[in-house]
């Protein structure tokens, strides 16, 4: 009896350690990828690399237009997606009764989240570039990316709104406020940090998306900075792809690709870190 228990405990220990090994290997693999990108790219990074225009067929100069282009695309997409996502979430949490309608909407959100990014690219190409005739432009790219991140923003806003305690709503309604007044003046302000987290996560996702912008916004090289929403732009993720797959001087281009990758990676990781910290802080707010 005694030895059987010892055996059971021993099996447990062995199996738990094997599981642990799997976890540490997984983290190590992900860590190695980031390490290699940094190792090869960090030497390229300089003030000039970040702030100057590319020169000599992408073999000299910097990536400033790509940084600026990504900034425009990301801001544009957030601008479109945030009001849409937040309003959708308000309806889903504050108005809709549990039942078929809300199920249907949620299935829509989940399925939209699962659409492959290249399919969004084709949709953007057909609708924004072609039908609406916006051409390959910041506008087409930002609109396409807005659809890509809409589910992220809806889900995060929904979570934020749900976590606002019902006492908040009840107190406001009891004071004679209408439902909309309650939402606008009480619920929404309380949910803002959570919604912000969702937007930040959206920014992180969109900054790295490549497939949706290949046909809708991105160009490998432009002589001047974009001057309107109808200009095509360079963008960080597309720039990485283009540097390693096209062009005539691979030996000089590849280090630039690593450098660009470091810039993109640092941006995305910092953005995600900010979102996570904000979320942890925010989840403490209502828990006690």
């Amino acid at each position, binding site marked *: 009896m005694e030895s059987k228990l010892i055996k*059971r405990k021993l*099996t*447990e220990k062995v199996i*738990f350690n*094997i*599981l*642990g090994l*799997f*976890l540490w290997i*997984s*983290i190590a*693999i*992900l860590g190695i*990828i980031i390490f*290699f*990108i940094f190792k090869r790219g960090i030497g390229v990074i300089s003030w000039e690399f970040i702030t100057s225009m590319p020169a000599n067929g992408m073999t000299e100069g910097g990536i400033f237009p790509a940084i600026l282009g990504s900034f425009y695309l990301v801001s544009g997409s957030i601008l479109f997606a945030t009001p*849409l996502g937040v309003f*959708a979430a*308000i*309806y889903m949490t504050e*108005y809709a009764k549990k039942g078929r309608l809300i199920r*249907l*909407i949620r*299935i829509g959100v*989940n*399925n*939209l989240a*699962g*659409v*492959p*990014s*290249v*399919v969004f*690219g084709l*949709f953007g*190409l*057909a*609708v924004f570039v*072609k039908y609406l005739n916006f051409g390959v432009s910041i506008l087409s790219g930002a609109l396409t990316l807005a659809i890509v991140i*809409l*589910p992220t923003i809806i889900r995060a806003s929904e979570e934020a709104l749900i976590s606002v305690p019902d006492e908040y709503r009840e107190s406001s309604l009891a004071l004679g406020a*209408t*439902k*909309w007044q309650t939402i606008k003046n009480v619920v929404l302000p309380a949910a803002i940090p959570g919604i912000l987290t969702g937007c930040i996560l959206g920014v992180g996702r969109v*900054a*790295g*998306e*490549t*497939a949706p912008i*290949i046909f809708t916004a991105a160009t490998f090289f432009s002589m001047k900075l974009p001057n309107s929403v109808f200009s095509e732009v360079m963008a960080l993720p597309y720039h*990485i*792809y283009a540097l*390693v797959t096209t062009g005539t001087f691979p030996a000089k281009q590849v280090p630039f*690709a690593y450098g660009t990758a470091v810039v993109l*990676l640092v941006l*995305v*990781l910092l953005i*995600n*870190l900010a979102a996570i910290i904000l979320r*942890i802080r925010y989840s403490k707010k209502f828990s006690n």
Partner: protein
Amino acid sequence: MLNWKTKEKVIKNTLLFFAFSSILFLAGIIVVLFNEGAPIFAKVGIFKFMFTGDWYPTYDPAGFGIYNLLAASIVVTIGAMVFAVPFGVASAVYISYILPKRFKNIVKPTIEMLAGVPSVIYGLFGMKILSPYIKELFGLPTGLNALTAMIMLGIMALPTIVSLSEDAITAVPKSFRDASLALGGTRLETMVRVILPTASSGIVTAIILGMGRAIGETMTVLMVAGGASLFPSNILKPVRPMTATIAAEMGEAPVGSDHYQALFGIAIILFIITLIFNIFADMAQQRFKKKVSGE
């Protein structure tokens, strides 16, 4: 000045419209894909389109059979899952069940942060760092092949699977665990016989979503799979999954041409596959919710 009741009603209906935006976009995607892509099914025949392997879109006469591309997508996705599922689920179990809480609070956010690494960065790593190793290891003419794509996709799917499986395991009520422990089960027995069976449909959701992400992944396979539209009979040969085909060729296909329509045709097939995945994931999720809330 509107009466407040009318105003409330207007607001409610406006919000309802916004709430439908996702469904509208989804419907819009379906309409657009079929509008642009369906003509190719009529020209080639849906059966021939899907189940013949001659993809010669720019030849005369052109061939529009996507069988090899479809097979490549499926093979590469399955290969990725062979790696990602055991590693992902084991890691999730360890994080949620064994790791002390103070470590968990660091490890889980780290994994979530890694989930945000853009696919083009995995592509760059696979193309320039992993593939030379694969090339040398197997003595191949090129390291850009199905195997490299599988490895990279597997790594990419890992954070998704870990994070969502971990959520599922953590969502199992603590009372289930306590009951089993109180009956004299060891922690391992509790995990195998109580926690995992309860969390199983949640873990299945995580795996399906991970698969959906892998089959729809574009940049990584575009950069590392090699790009040859061959049947994936050997994983050490270059392949061309559906997503890579669309991304690589759309730039050259004249708008409205047969080639353009065929690429939208591929997108239709891809969209349907991911839609099926999502529906299954959703069903598993519903089952899981019922189970956890106590049937």
